[in-house]
């Protein structure tokens, strides 16, 4: 029981302190798992993280699920996932419920309009970071090639992103 409580705390704290999505909370998870509870060494943690990054899907829940499982089996995995997901999700639902109630008011409309440029910047910065990390990982030529191919398939032929990503996975598995 105490172990489950510890697992809950280890992922609850990064979940409510980690601003900027899952990847931003990883150092906080490491702090809990490696430094506070000493469930694994830094080396082990970075190995788990590396594998997690090679697999698709959100990273925070992968870490919560796996580390919870490694410490306390399937219930541990559930506790780890719940602690990662639930607090921020509940907060989100409550706040959006309030927002939606007044969504036709001028103030809320103005809020929607005012944050748009910031969202554009946020997404633009993320796009830039992905391009830079692609340049570092796969080189300039491959990066340009893959961006051009993405443009062609996504913008011109309107193919569903899932197929484009599947295509990129096959291409990367063979040529990179």
């Amino acid at each position, binding site marked *: 029981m105490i172990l489950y409580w510890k697992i809950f705390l280890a992922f609850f704290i990064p979940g409510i302190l980690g601003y900027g999505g899952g990847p931003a909370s990883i150092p906080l998870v490491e702090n809990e798992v490696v430094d506070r509870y000493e469930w694994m060494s830094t080396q082990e943690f970075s190995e788990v993280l590396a594998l997690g990054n090679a697999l698709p899907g959100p990273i925070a829940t992968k870490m919560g699920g796996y580390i919870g499982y490694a410490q306390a089996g399937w219930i541990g995995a559930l506790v780890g996932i719940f602690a990662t997901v639930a607090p921020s999700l509940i907060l989100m639902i409550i706040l959006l419920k309030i927002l939606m109630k007044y969504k036709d008011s001028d*103030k809320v409309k103005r809020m929607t309009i005012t944050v748009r440029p910031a969202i554009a910047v946020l997404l633009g910065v993320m796009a830039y970071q992905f391009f830079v*990390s692609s340049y570092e990982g796969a080189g300039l030529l491959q990066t340009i090639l893959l961006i051009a191919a993405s443009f062609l398939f996504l913008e011109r032929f309107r193919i569903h992103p899932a197929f484009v990503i599947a295509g990129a996975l096959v291409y990367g598995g063979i040529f*990179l």
Partner: protein
Amino acid sequence: MRNETEVVSTPKTVKKKTIHVALFLGFFRVGIFGYGGGPSSIPLVHKEVVEHYGWFTDDEFGDLLALGNTLPGPIATKLAGYIGYRVAGPFGMINAVLATILPSILAMIALLTTLSMYKDKAWVQGMTKAVVPVVGFMLAQLTWQFTKKSKAGMGWTQSIVIIVLSLVLMEFLNVHPGIIIGLLLLYAWFGTWGSSKKKQDEYVKASGES
């Protein structure tokens, strides 16, 4: 896989069931094609929720993203959970969150408990590398869409001012995006631009009891 799934896909389907199947499929695709953690799945969520199923408009999705970014915690599950909740209630919420996270968690546990050698294999690394620029391009597409929307909402001048300010604060002064969005929300809340007197009165009346 089970018989139930076949029942669901027959023409006589109850609408509620179809929504749950759609929610599951949509977020399952998001979960297994989102390489690089939650934020990289944002364009995929947008594709499913706005373009494919039409559950939300671009504007609503922008609001979700803005609020999601000002709140702590993983973004992918916040989006999935809220969208699932709005589309099909609490069960929809659980459905969408599980569809997003379960495939990758199971794969992770299976790989780490059996063979963790794969992560060093050249083809696995190649696969991950090739997806990065594709996701980058999708994010660039969304960036452009939101820029156009800004212009539609407040004109070029004000959009560009806020874009440049946000960029400088975020990138060069390392201010957290959540703080910038929070400040913009306050600015919009206390500002009076873009609202006619009559509409403001209506709003005051509508929110009188709160």
